[in-house]
């Protein structure tokens, strides 16, 4: 998990606009995602969940809270004789 302070959102949106996020967390596992959300909930901090940065217009004045970037990667396959195959794919953005 990486935590950045006053990170410009313009670096993470496809439109390349957006002021600083007070805290910018890059989560690479499910546990990191859950921990970050739980911490924000517990401290009533504003939370914005970001993926690859498309379909987002961030304000020039930035975000006074935590932006959580989902950066989980990978795929798991379970193949069983009776159940067939189950494929689980991480929801993080791909680039």
């Amino acid at each position, binding site marked *: 998990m990486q935590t950045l302070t006053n990170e410009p959102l313009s670096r993470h949106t*496809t*439109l*390349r606009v957006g002021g600083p996020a007070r805290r910018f967390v890059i989560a690479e596992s499910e546990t990191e995602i859950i921990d970050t959300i739980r911490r924000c909930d517990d401290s009533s901090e504003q939370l914005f969940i970001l993926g690859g940065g*498309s*379909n987002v217009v961030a304000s020039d004045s930035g975000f006074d809270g935590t932006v959580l970037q989902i950066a989980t990667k990978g795929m798991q396959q379970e193949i069983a004789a009776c159940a067939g195959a189950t494929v689980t794919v991480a929801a993080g953005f791909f680039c």
Partner: protein
Amino acid sequence: MTTQAFVVGTELPSITVHFTRAELVRYAGASGDLNIIHWNERTALAVGLPGVIAHGMLTMGHAIRVVTEWLDDPSQVVDYQVRFTRPVVVPDDDLGAEVTFSGKVSAVNEDGSAVVTLSAVFEGSTVLARAMATVKR
């Protein structure tokens, strides 16, 4: 200064737009949203879409033109939100996908601002839901 009356029920002039593949390519470049489903039919079909689809934000951008062309000053728009409910499928031809946008003043707030409810219709169905813009005087 605005010359438009903010009266509930006022209908704004509608706009018809043809979304073409060429426009999607230009929007991909301008917005930085290079998702393949917006320009490659093979990939769009492979992931279960009916074909190449327009960027939601492009549709959203065209829809607000109903309001900005009605107003004197586009910065009177202080809030704008939509939900994307159906994809706009853009064929590989010169005409493109025809979408008609219209709007109506649905509320006037105490501070004099107005709420415009927008609609976007493609092939007889609406593609944006809860599309609303708040405009100040």
